[in-house]
């Protein structure tokens, strides 16, 4: 047992040396945990406020100006005032996600109780923004009209004061979310590709065969790859979280970093093992590349780190619940944003550990079969 640990350690040192010897890989790891995180965190906005809106004002009344100003910054990003003829072109080209059309005589008709129609055009291909934005604009228009008319005839008040508050991210600043999730997504990409390709390389170069005639067990070879690549990635992701996300991007991290680290390690074991497992199904690097891509993309987009799990049908949620990413994302959100302690997240940790052990077990049995096979 002691000597097995020592051998794993020695092999891990070897893996680290291999990694450090490749400047291109190091540069990519650096890029992924710094520039890429900042790019995604600052570039990608899911807020409706970020949506580009335009207004066609054919009324030029006080009410239409009130509505227009309500749709201008800060609520919307530089809503343009455009001519009716520009609507189609602007929406076709994707320049505007929303166009609000205020018809002529809108105000006077409203005052006369004629129920004039105001039209909100929504680019329904921008799914992430369209639904929420439409409701949002409807609400603004209704509110502005109501308050305008109330002032005009001194109308009544709403019966209930509904106060909606967001916990953990009061302003719903999407950078808080995307920055941390990008770190997690990149961890998954790196772990799968680095460990998987490291194994394929050993196979293509015949070094794995050499290891297998020495007093080293397949499990030790696997664990060494996991330990070495995992240590680099966990270390890099932790630095990225503290330096890039917290310090540079100023995203508050309320939860316990050591607890997050513990979860990261469990997560790392299972995704690196997943990389190894995929590598046992491929014989060559080109095969491995093609096999790992869909897996990475599915984990990237469907684990709850990009789109909410609640958007997926039950069967897919069920399938995704077997992936380590889904649990780690949920764990990370609980710990980092909501400050959850180990008493609340232990089930996720336990599931992560179980998934890790199962993947390792599968990997171990595939490993023995495929390594000895001749190519």
């Amino acid at each position: 047992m002691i000597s097995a640990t020592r051998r794993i350690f020695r092999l891990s040192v070897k893996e680290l040396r291999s990694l450090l010897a490749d400047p291109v890989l190091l540069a990519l790891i650096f890029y992924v945990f710094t520039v890429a995180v900042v790019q995604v965190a600052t570039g990608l906005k899911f807020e409706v406020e970020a949506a580009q809106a335009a207004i066609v004002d054919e009324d030029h009344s006080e009410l239409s100006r009130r509505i227009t100003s309500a749709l201008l910054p800060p609520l919307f990003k530089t809503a343009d005032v455009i001519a009716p003829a520009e609507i189609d072109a602007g929406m076709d080209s994707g320049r505007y996600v929303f166009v609000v059309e205020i018809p002529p005589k809108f105000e006077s008709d409203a005052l006369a109780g004629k129920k004039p129609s105001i039209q909100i055009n929504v680019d329904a291909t921008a799914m992430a923004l369209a639904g929420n934005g439409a409701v949002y604009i409807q609400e603004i228009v209704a509110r502005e009209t109501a308050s305008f008319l109330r002032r005009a005839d001194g109308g009544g008040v709403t019966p209930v004061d509904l106060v909606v508050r967001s916990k953990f991210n009061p302003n719903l600043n999407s950078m808080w979310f995307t920055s941390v999730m990008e770190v997690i997504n990149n961890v998954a990409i790196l772990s799968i590709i680095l460990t998987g390709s490291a194994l394929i390389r050993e196979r293509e170069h015949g070094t794995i065969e050499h290891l297998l005639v020495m007093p080293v067990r397949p499990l030790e070879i696997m664990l060494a790859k996991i330990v070495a690549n995992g240590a680099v990635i966990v270390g890099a992701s932790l630095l990225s979280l503290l330096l890039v996300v917290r310090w540079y991007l100023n995203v508050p991290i309320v939860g316990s970093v050591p607890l997050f680290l513990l979860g990261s390690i469990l997560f790392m074991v299972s995704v690196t093992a997943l990389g190894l497992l995929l590598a046992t199904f491929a014989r060559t690097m080109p095969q491995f590349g093609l096999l790992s891509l869909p897996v990475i993309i599915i984990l990237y987009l469907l684990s709850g780190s990009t789109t909410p799990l609640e958007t997926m049908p039950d069967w897919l949620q069920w399938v995704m619940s077997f992936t380590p990413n889904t649990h780690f994302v949920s764990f990370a959100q609980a710990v980092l944003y909501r400050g959850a302690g180990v008493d609340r997240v232990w089930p996720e940790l336990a599931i992560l550990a179980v998934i890790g052990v199962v993947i390792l077990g599968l990997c171990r049995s595939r490993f023995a079969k495929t390594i000895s096979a001749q190519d």
Partner: protein
Amino acid sequence: MSAVAALDNVTHLYRATRALDGVTLALPEGKMIGLIGPDGVGKSTLLALVGGVRRIQSGAVTTLGGDMADARHRAACAARIAYMPQGLGRNLYPTLSVYENLDFFGRLFGQGAAERAARIADLLASTGLDPFPDRPAGQLSGGMKQKLSLCCALIHDPDLLILDEPTTGVDPLSRRQFWDLIDRIRARRPGMSVAVATAYMEEAERFDWLAALNDGKIIGAGAPAELRALTGEKTLDAAFIALLPPEARADHSDVVLPPLRAGEGAAIEAENLTCRFGKFTAVDHVSFRIGRGEIFGFLGSNGCGKSTTMKMLTGLLAPSEGEARLFGQKLDAGDMATRRRVGYMSQSFSLYSELTVRQNLALHAQLFELPEPGATARVSELLTRFALEGVADQRPEGLPLGIRQRLQLAVAVLHRPEVLILDEPTSGVDPVARDSFWRLLIGLSRQDGVTIFISTHFMNEAERCDRISLMHAGKVLAIGAPADLVAARGKPDLEQTFIAYLEDATASTESAEAVGFAAPRGNGAIRRFDPARLWAYARREAMEILRDRLRLVFAFVGPLTLLLTFGYGISFDVENLAYAVYDQDNSLESRELLENFAGSRYFSQRPDIGSAGEVDRRLATGELKLAIEIPAGYGRDLTAGKTPRVAVWIDGAMPFRAETIRSYVTGISQTWLAEQQRRRGLTMAASPINIETRFRYNQAFKSVYSIIPGVIMLILMLVPSMLTALGVVREKEVGSIANFRSTPVTPVEFLLGKQAPYIALSLASFGILFVTALVLFGLPVRGSALALFLGAALYIYATTSLGILFSAFLRTQVAALFATAVVSIIPAVNFSGLLVPVASLSEGGRLVGLIFPCGWFQEISIGAFTKGMDFVHLAPNLLALLGFGLFYQLCAVLALRKQEA
């Protein structure tokens, strides 16, 4: 005497190592020229410079009457030079058949179909390969591989044939046939000059002219007889040693094998060992017994089952039948104790090329758990004993074959094993190093009682074994002491004996003479761009893909899986959001309000909340996404018109989800308000205006309408670039890049040829995705179908070019794989308009989106599928995609150097 090639004061450095040091040499024309010398003295570098495959660092090289620093001259004479790199079949493509390999080379040199057919038939007949034109090159024996390599080199009738250690690792019979073949070709084409680097001195004897190299310098040149006369030695071997400077010579003495003191019992026993791969029997009921301390030699042609037998004895392969015993015990592959007693060296280099020589040794010392401080001392001792100190801190990848073999052997003996299993350990090692290596083996055997099981192609090594076994086609032909075998056959030496056994077994006779080549070489100028060469590469690449079934399956199934998963899986309808209620009022009115939530498909209710603290806690675990708190006295206040306050808490951890919840809550509360007002008879004030929301392009607001075009964009970004990303870099790792360097093919032809099949493959994949989108998901094509198809084609062109670019400038497959994944996934997912429209990204995000082709194609995909845009509106995007493709390609052409550094 005119020279076919001349070097003038040529110096070549690899970092600090001087491979060539001020060499000035003229190679005579029309002769068989040999370069002899130990490993790493610069033979390969010299040949590569003469052949124009390496860049000249300093000095001048003239080949075939022109300056090799001049790219135009190199291009012009590429068709007159043939270059065969070091290593068995390194320039061959293993999945292509014998015929297809030759055909590929013929096409590279612009030969027509009839000319190719005639030449190939002729070459196959004269090399004895004609019975197996359809056998894949990867399944040929080593000797046959080298013959095929030679055929490939000869297909264009070169004036200068450059062979870098062509017979290393080839058995004596094949070697003899190989040189006979060269002689016959020279007889037919007397003007052809042949330059050969070799480590076999007995081969060098038959050459016309020799240059001896040592340490990057020429130490002697002339005909073999002249060299012998000059040094006064009888053999070339001895003459070479005499030419060496005194300090290099000091080490040398004859190898003497002291008699064997027979140890007790057997170290290795094989009993009816059989190994089958599918239908093919690699090892067929082999039995032998090797005593302790014995040196047992294993001889046989390449591919006869030697390596397979050795692998079974190490436990790497499980025998299909029979039994292997080590020290009387049945071999157990999982037994760690056994592994400590065995040292193994495989035929191909199998140490870590990214670790230095010293690190490799240290790693193995650690893995075998040699105790410190002995381990460090042992490593130093081995560095000295195997003459590796000079290169201790270099990485093996740049070292010559012979030095790498020494390192492998040092690793194999590191842990002082009782049994050594060595698979062609001296292949490619120079004579001096081989002798010192054998002294070492003999020392191990005679002093330490180590049992040595060794396979070799060198007859003088076989003679040093206590016993040898001759193997052919999986069967043992004879076992015995070398002298006994020679006596039994009545031949003059072991080589003849061995060849006699082999000839008996194969009953083969070489075809004596072949007809002359049918077509003379066209003397037209080399075209700068020749579609035929491009086609040659494209055709070859296509054949390779079509034979790699697994890759083909992944290439089609992967995209389809993604399309189906996302088509059915992603939507932006957030449903079944878990919520709970903290109702402190519990009145009729509060229940009425809450019914609106309970009845919504967007929300799913969880057990009620009992305390204020519970709100926080259950939100924090993520169990609840939404909590509704109704204060005590709500119903009373509502009826009294006092405007009670209802608090709704949303989990803001995921902003998109939180916003969606907020909009749902707003919607529900509006419905409830309307209901309230209606009930109070306030229908009048219900709403002063109509708000008409028009969901354009997608009236039903179905997610697939926006998701499917986006997913197609994503797939066509990732998969085509991944397909091409490994194309060039793989050739660099495998070695077949040599063909690009040594034939007239230009970078543009090479890259386009490699890219073309993947464009076709990706177009087919797009076709499948398109049909699936139409049929399965009912997606319409509302806009210009032409723009969509043209856009897909140009987009695929751009993304495959991106992959080619990575492949051209990176050195390892791992780096290319990684770079492609990272650089394509991040912009394609985040900045292309897949999740959020490009117009809604921040400045920086939009910029990232603009500098990758994915965002441009996303507009085409969405525009043509759902937005109903016409061709004219999408034309700028088409142009942009074309621009990306051209730009990436240009960069790739610039990054790919025709010559090696």
